[in-house]
């Protein structure tokens, strides 16, 4: 960032309090818990996660300090929000399953202690296939988890190795079997496409391998080469070919074809699911619902206020240990920002955007989108076509005033 750039966001109050207007809206509430630990850092990853070596022996960065801090933040959230029922809980990372099973279960218990959970609450954890076994999975369902999201990424050896992922062959299938046996009601697999060196056949192979495991939900993300990652450095040095948007477009079309053939339906740009298995937690993001993100670097949104926590686990824990909010900064969205966000987010969804959200001049630009074959309108909602989904960001730019 240029030194002259303004700080991103406004200062957040140290007691974590929110304006009354944000609290009054009372949209359905979700909780996100960020577990910022990984065994190793994958070359493509720029998420807020740390290996033991990266954290070192700093006192505030231990797992213990982290767990204490998360409990404190849960209490803070409960104090600020009051007793509102939680519709979805999502443990992400990092690698949540790097925590001992008792700790992960214990965190969910802490959630229950802080908030009432809705009877049909969706409770997900992400998992690395290598870090779980049948006993671990059984402990999770025992604790109340009902949805598992497995980071599969690919089934092709050379693609996994470019991503720095090492899976035992057949491991993902085994884990899916164990998860079913343990009683997980919804299982999702994550794939990444368009990695350097991945051919269309490689991609089909991975899709078919994933779909062969009969997941309830599938996410397929195009690889984004983030600046500062090892992968970006390797591409810059010419060790790996770069990624190409046209190839990504081709692979997206392959994904749609293969996944639809397996009976899953598209519901968000990068997500497909069998009916009833769309990820409600993810939808909460795209529908601008309320959620509190707990943990280092986690983002929250409540009634038009967005805030985000300090990223480093030690700094995060220190704030909470001092009895203060771990928020780094926040922004209070005005009506215009919120409207822009709705257009931006809801056009990504199969359910589309209510045309009433648009201004008259924006509505006047809708016919051009339809004429280009990028969308259609039914029930007063604009929905993007397959081709339109690939151009969603550009369409939003053109559409907005």
């Amino acid at each position, binding site marked *: 960032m240029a030194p002259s750039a303004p700080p*991103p*966001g406004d200062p957040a109050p140290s007691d974590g309090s929110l304006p009354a207007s944000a609290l009054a809206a009372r949209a359905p509430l979700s909780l*996100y818990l*960020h577990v910022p630990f990984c065994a190793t850092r994958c070359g493509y990853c720029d*998420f*807020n996660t740390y290996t033991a070596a990266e954290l070192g022996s700093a006192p505030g960065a231990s797992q213990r300090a982290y767990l204490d801090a998360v409990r404190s933040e849960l209490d803070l959230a409960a104090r600020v929000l009051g007793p509102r029922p939680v519709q979805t809980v999502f443990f*992400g990372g990092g690698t949540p399953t790097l925590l001992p099973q008792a700790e992960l279960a214990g965190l969910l218990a802490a959630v229950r202690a802080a908030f009432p959970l809705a009877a049909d609450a969706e409770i997900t954890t992400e998992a690395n296939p290598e870090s779980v076994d049948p006993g671990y999975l059984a402990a999770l369902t025992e604790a109340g988890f009902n949805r598992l999201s497995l980071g599969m990424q690919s089934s092709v050896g050379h693609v996994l190795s470019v991503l720095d992922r090492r899976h035992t062959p057949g491991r993902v299938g085994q884990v899916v079997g164990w998860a079913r046996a343990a009683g997980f009601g919804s299982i999702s697999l994550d794939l990444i496409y368009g990695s350097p060196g991945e051919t269309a056949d490689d991609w089909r192979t991975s899709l078919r391998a994933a779909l062969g495991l009969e997941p309830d939900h599938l996410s397929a*993300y*195009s690889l*984004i080469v983030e600046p500062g990652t090892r992968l970006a450095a390797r591409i810059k040095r010419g060790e790996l070919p770069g990624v190409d*948007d*046209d190839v*990504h*477009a081709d692979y*997206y079309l392959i994904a749609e074809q293969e996944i639809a053939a397996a009976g899953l339906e598209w519901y968000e*740009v*990068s997500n497909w699911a069998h009916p009833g298995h769309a990820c409600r937690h993810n939808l909460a*993001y795209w529908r*601008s619902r309320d*959620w509190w*993100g707990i943990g280092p*670097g*986690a*983002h*929250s*949104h409540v009634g038009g206020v*967005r805030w*985000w926590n300090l990223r480093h686990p030690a700094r995060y824990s220190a704030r909470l240990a001092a009895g203060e909010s771990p928020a780094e900064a926040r*922004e209070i969205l005005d009506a215009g*920002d919120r409207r*822009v*966000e709705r257009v*931006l*987010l809801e056009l*990504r969804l199969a359910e589309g955007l209510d045309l009433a959200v648009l201004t008259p001049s924006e509505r006047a630009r809708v016919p051009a989108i339809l004429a*280009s074959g990028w969308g259609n309108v039914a029930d007063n909602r604009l929905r993007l076509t397959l081709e339109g*989904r*690939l*151009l*969603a*960001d*550009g369409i*939003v*730019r*053109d559409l*907005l005033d």
Partner: protein
Amino acid sequence: MPAPRPGATPSEIIRNFCIIAHIDHGKSTLADRMLQLTGVVDERSMRAQYLDRMDIERERGITIKSQAVRMPWTKDDTTYVLNMIDTPGHVDFTYEVSRSLAACEGAILLIDAAQGIEAQTLANLYLALEADLHIIPVLNKIDLPSAQPEKYAAEIAHLVGCEPSDVFQVSAKTGEGVRELLDHIVADIPHPVGDPKAPARALIFDSVYDTYRGVVTYVRVVDGELNHRERVLMMSTKATHETLEVGVISPEPIKAAALGVGEVGYLITGVKEVRQSRVGDTVTVASRPAGTSLGGYRQPHPMVYAGLYPIDGADFPELREALDKLQLNDAALVYEPETSGALGFGFRVGFLGLLHMEIVRERLEREFNLDLISTAPNVVYRVVMEDGTEHTVTNPSEYPDGKIAEVHEPVVRATILTPTEFIGTVMELCQNRRGVQTGMDYLSEDRVEIRYLLPLAEIVFDFFDALKSRTKGYASLDYDEAGEQVAKLVKVDILLHGDPVDAFSSIVHNDSAYSYGVAMAKKLKELIPRQQFEVPIQAAIGARVIARETVRAMRKDVLAKCYGGDISRKRKLLEKQKEGKKRMKMVGRVEVPQEAFVAALSTGETKSDKK
């Protein structure tokens, strides 16, 4: 002995001289040393390169505008008055140089003893010889380890027609030889001759706008006397003004009662624009005017035109104001508003040549804080139609449609000095630029002067850069107008998605139209970002397409995910992209980034590496 006073100085003790030198050959340092040795500037207040006032001049090591400094120098018990007239050193200012020379009786030909003479210096030497000046050849920088005084003394002796032993050797930096040189100026340069009783006649050799004083006009009095508080008449423009002040520069302005025969000084009349007091004009006294002017006056006329556009369209009024201000001090600068479909509102600006263009542009950007796009420079064409009508084209977009009988383009006499090892390379370059060789002379065993007749259009773009890079920087260039010639020229248009982009139209020779079209289309293909639809790029002569490239449609423009609910980041990215979209110029439906115009219009190869 007191220094003689202005207005009361017999012409017999006056010596008027200038220094002819190439950039970097040490003219300013020598001038500094003379100011110091003659005592007009003391050591403590000595500012390096005292005479170069403007930042740009200082940075480029060149002097754009000349000044005249009066210095006393005592030799054999007589105190003389030395007037050092500083001359501009570049090709575009030949006329100004000739007027400065006309104000002198002698010239110091200053050559770097490590580099030898350069083309522009040679051209100015020829001007000085034509003006019948006494030439004192001087080798500078003899203290440098790389100096080759014998070699270059022989070269200069050959050019000037003297013995190598007659060439002075100095180091302006250490001061070695400079006293002797000053003595030599007194001894050898003839004193001015004029009729003190005749009606006043003074040559304007420079005219500078000063924020506080208005225009300061530098003159050399030939006959008669110019006095404080009298009406003067500019003989070519017929304008009369009252002299509010006359004086000399030494090196700060010193007011005087009068300026007499042979004297060099300034006058201030309160006029606000240099074009009211033009270089080369003759000043006389309105109450007793001279019958004939001194002659040699010429109206400056632009040789090269380019469109200048503010990158931010809202800066157009600022650009106009800035040009108005520059014009106060630059009689050669002409401009008129023009509109480009691609670039918006701007000005078509006429320049004396390439350096003049660069200087004006740089001053606009630096002194007035403007961000500008400049179109490719072009020359002035005279297009004669079959029905006999004639068009003067200063902008390719004005190139007439219909049946053209002849197109005339300006040509120049170019002189190139180069080490002999590059003769082949230089000739090849000139040949490729439609040059016709008119002569070649060896200056010494290993240096040669090559003369070509070249279309001006072929050298306005990147000729100088090409010459420099092909000769490892050793060749130098000078050129001079040489009329016009008929040539087979065509206008090549560039179309984006079927719409012509006026800023990219160019008038080129028929033989290079194809390669120009192909190169431009290729370049644009690299520069224009993919759009949501396919964009054909065509180069065409009239309706005939000569080259075509395609920017393929963008197929993917969506981010796969949002990071852990970081919607703010996504919204800010959108805002940034929308901001970027605003800075795009629309050509029909095609969004073209400002940078693409800048890059496409810049000289040289496109650079593939970003950052």
